[in-house]
């Protein structure tokens, strides 16, 4: 599938428009470096090739084929905290097709299918296709869209969507399932990371007067782990399987302000996003470390809030676009206890505070070709001091520079 996607992506810009196919997309190529605490990763980069091929059959029906290929030569910040080396390469290829059927009155139905393959190399001698966390994801979905108005003044587009994801970690099986019989091990399940997700979401966009835009996104995701058994306080694996319910609510507001009469005129757009999410899971955890054996029910449950202001400044005379962003998030686990540095459990629930600041500058070199610079700083603080296997308290930063070509 990877070759098919790459070939189709490379060919996308040259597919004859005369056949009624509209091709849009972009190619990003960046190089840079990540820093995690005092450690720095080797100079590396990432590339994104993203294309949509759209064919309209009429005003009421059309087809979109999307293809995306992403190469990343480093770890994301949230993966860095999981330990291991700074080295990681990943290759993410996906392809999807969506049928658009529009009806009178602003209604649309949009069924879709898709497949994604993600490969990881996490040590330098690991071969592509042999990564522990390599996975395939099969997707399907259906969106009902209504384009209408909220009163006289405001256009309103809302969508109800159902999305289904079948994620299969092709190489990940629990060790106990592979060797359990000879070790008289318990049976936690075999494909313990595989999931079926049914996600129901509502997305609403309002174009408000005064160059303002509001967006509401709410989702409920029911995630079933068909082969992960629930553990009880005695360490026994029950016949019931893990099942999670994830809820998310995001509110976003942005406003374009009047141009500033400076540096050849600057157009500011300010935005603010607030988010609330929580996870309920029936899975528990038994810490088998003999020094601090501990059973924690509802180990994964958490409540998370986040606030993210952002600003964009477009320099009209030079074409430079500057984007600044900041995000502050708090995650509180409802039952997971914080641990001291030696692993001893405290009575406090584990909390994690994370903040990040980002800067992106895009400068047009030519028509549809931008030079881009990206910088990011992130920090995480937690009352959990036990960091034997996972870093809860850290700072990281990165810089990248590259080109973006839109077609």
């Amino acid at each position, binding site marked *: 599938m990877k070759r098919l996607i790459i070939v189709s992506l490379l060919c996308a810009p040259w597919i004859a428009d005369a056949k009624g196919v509209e091709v849009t997309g972009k190619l990003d190529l960046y190089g840079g470096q990540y820093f995690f605490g005092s450690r720095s990763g080797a100079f590396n980069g990432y590339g994104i090739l993203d294309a949509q091929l759209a064919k309209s059959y009429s005003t009421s029906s059309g087809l979109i084929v999307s293809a995306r290929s992403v190469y990343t030569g480093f770890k994301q910040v949230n993966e860095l905290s999981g330990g291991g080396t700074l080295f990681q390469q990943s290759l993410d290829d996906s392809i999807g097709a969506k049928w658009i059927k529009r009806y009178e009155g602003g209604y649309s139905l949009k069924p879709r299918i898709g497949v994604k393959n993600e490969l990881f190399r996490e040590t330098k001698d690991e071969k592509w296709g042999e990564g522990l966390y390599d996975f395939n994801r099969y997707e399907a979905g259906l969106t009902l869209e209504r384009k*209408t108005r909220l009163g006289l003044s405001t256009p309103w587009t809302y969508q109800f969507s159902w999305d289904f994801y079948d994620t299969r970690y092709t190489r990940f099986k629990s060790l106990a399932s592979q060797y359990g019989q000879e*070790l008289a091990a318990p049976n936690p399940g075999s494909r313990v990371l595989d999931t079926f997700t049914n996600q129901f979401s509502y997305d609403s966009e309002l174009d408000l007067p005064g160059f303002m835009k509001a967006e509401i996104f709410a989702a409920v995701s029911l995630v079933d782990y068909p082969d992960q058994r629930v553990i009880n306080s005695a360490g026994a694996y029950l016949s019931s399987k893990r099942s999670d319910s994830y809820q998310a609510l995001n509110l976003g507001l942005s406003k374009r302000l009047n141009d500033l009469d400076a540096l050849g005129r600057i157009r500011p757009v300010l935005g603010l996003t607030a988010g609330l999410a929580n996870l309920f899971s029936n899975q528990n955890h038994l810490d088998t470390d003999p020094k601090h054996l501990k059973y924690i029910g509802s180990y994964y449950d958490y409540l998370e809030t986040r606030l993210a202001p952002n600003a964009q400044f477009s320099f009209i005379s030079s074409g430079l676009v500057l984007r600044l962003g900041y995000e502050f998030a708090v995650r509180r686990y409802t039952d997971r206890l914080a641990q001291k*540095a030696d692993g001893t459990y405290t009575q406090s629930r584990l909390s994690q505070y994370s903040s990040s600041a980002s800067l992106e500058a895009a400068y047009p070199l030519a028509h549809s070709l931008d030079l881009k610079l990206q910088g990011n700083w992130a920090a995480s603080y937690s009352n959990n001091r036990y960091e034997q296997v996972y870093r809860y308290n850290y700072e990281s930063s990165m810089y990248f520079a590259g080109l973006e070509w839109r077609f």
Partner: protein
Amino acid sequence: MKALHLVLLPLLAAQPCLGAVTQDIIMAPEGKVEARTGPAAAWVPVENKVRIAAGAEIRTGNDSKAGVFFPDGSRFMLGNNTLFSVDATGKKKAGFQLKFGRLKAAVAGYFSSRFEVRTPSAVCAVRGTEFDLDVAKDGGTEMNVSEGLVEVNDSKGAMAVVSSEERIKVGMDGMTPPETVSLKDESAGLAARPMAVRQETARERTRTMLEELRNRELKANEAQLGKDSIDAFGKRVRIEEYLLRPSNKEFKLLFLSRRAEEGRLDWGHLIERFQNKIPDDISQVGGIINGMYFSKTAPVNWMKYFEVYLTNTIDSVKETIDFGNPVSIDFSGYGAGVGSRYYPSSIDYKQILSGPGVALAVGAGTGGLNADERAQFQQTQDYNSSTAGQFTFTQKVVNASGALAVLEKTTLNPADLADVSAGGTNITDNAGLWGGPYPSDPDYSATINPVTTEVYPSGPGKADFMVTSTYEDGSTLSSRKLLVLNDGKIMDTTFNPADPAGSFVKEGSFNLELAVTSNLFQGRNIDVLIAPEILSQQKSATTTADSFAIR
């Protein structure tokens, strides 16, 4: 005119672009087009493209049209019989009037901070838009927005944001609510036009991002649970640990280390078996173990058996400890106020190797062991059994003949202050620990005493400690302990030369990599990553009375 088209094509093709915006506006006529510089000036025919400025008016005749082109790529196409004027072209505000006629606009939105088109009945503030505007002779305005947004105000103070594929009519008496155009209408856009595709792709990506985050979090959870690590030799290791309860009196901790790249599995277990039922909450077991030693009252429960087993699935090393029932012992030799305390009547520790190479060794299969097993080391202590009223400590190792032979034997009277102060009475000293061989011992060193070396392979200050014993029969056993970070880096440690191994246990908050090998393993080794507390428990369980501080 063809030449003009060629000049204009790049402008027409231009997407919204920010590059080097000037305030020059160019008008290109086609057919009968007249213009004037202001209301007071005379109309003059225009046949070629001209620059236009604020105050200019343009009118088109029958079968005529005009293009108005802006430096940011925006453009107005004026239809026939149209009257259009330029009110302002400033950076803060660009204003235009369509007094009557038709205008087709594609506005990038960067020419000015505020971009407005006025009609007799409406003010249309443009955000970045494609729209058609029709103004009738009576001033009535009809607007179709193909793509983007236009904010429309009428003369009555009503306001509406009109979006793509919407139509609004604004009369001198106010506006009617915008309507979505019919799919059959000629102004309806295609179902999969570029802007719609971009919006749809962005919305789908938002939804899919949740699943992407979940995928990442699953991986992070595995890391949080310590299931994925790099060993000290750069190999990727998956680690799983399980707690099993074979009966209500015991638990078994199973730990597995899998290195997929090498196709190897190393695993082991810790077993603790007790006299009576233990709580479901295994964390309370530590209290039971502590109660076995020096309790003033008879313990209600105590450990009977302890076992640590490590294997590479072919070779193994097993350490077992059998505990006798607690008995009351007079420990007054440790202090006048100590008195009688409960203590295990016996502690029997064995180290047993097994594997195909071990099966070929002399002495394999003896002492009640399997044919491929051999006891390499044994340490026993008992009270009152070997020596009346005293502890007897005995260490046995494999001798030159492959059989367990006594290396050290000591007695200690816990009620005798002098004997306790002297560290007991040595009976056999084949290791020469008591200042030389005991005179009555005929087997001193030459055939029994193993040679033990301790090295720090990664140098001082690094948590990498290896002990190798070479027994008199030529067999070797090497145990290397490393504290490693999750990226495989060997940890720096506060090195205590007086207690090098102990400093490993004290750190206690990193992965312990335990690599065990023997020349009886035929070139293989055992290499497991475990929680260091397992070692700590083993140390506690094997602590003998002579090393305990009694409180």
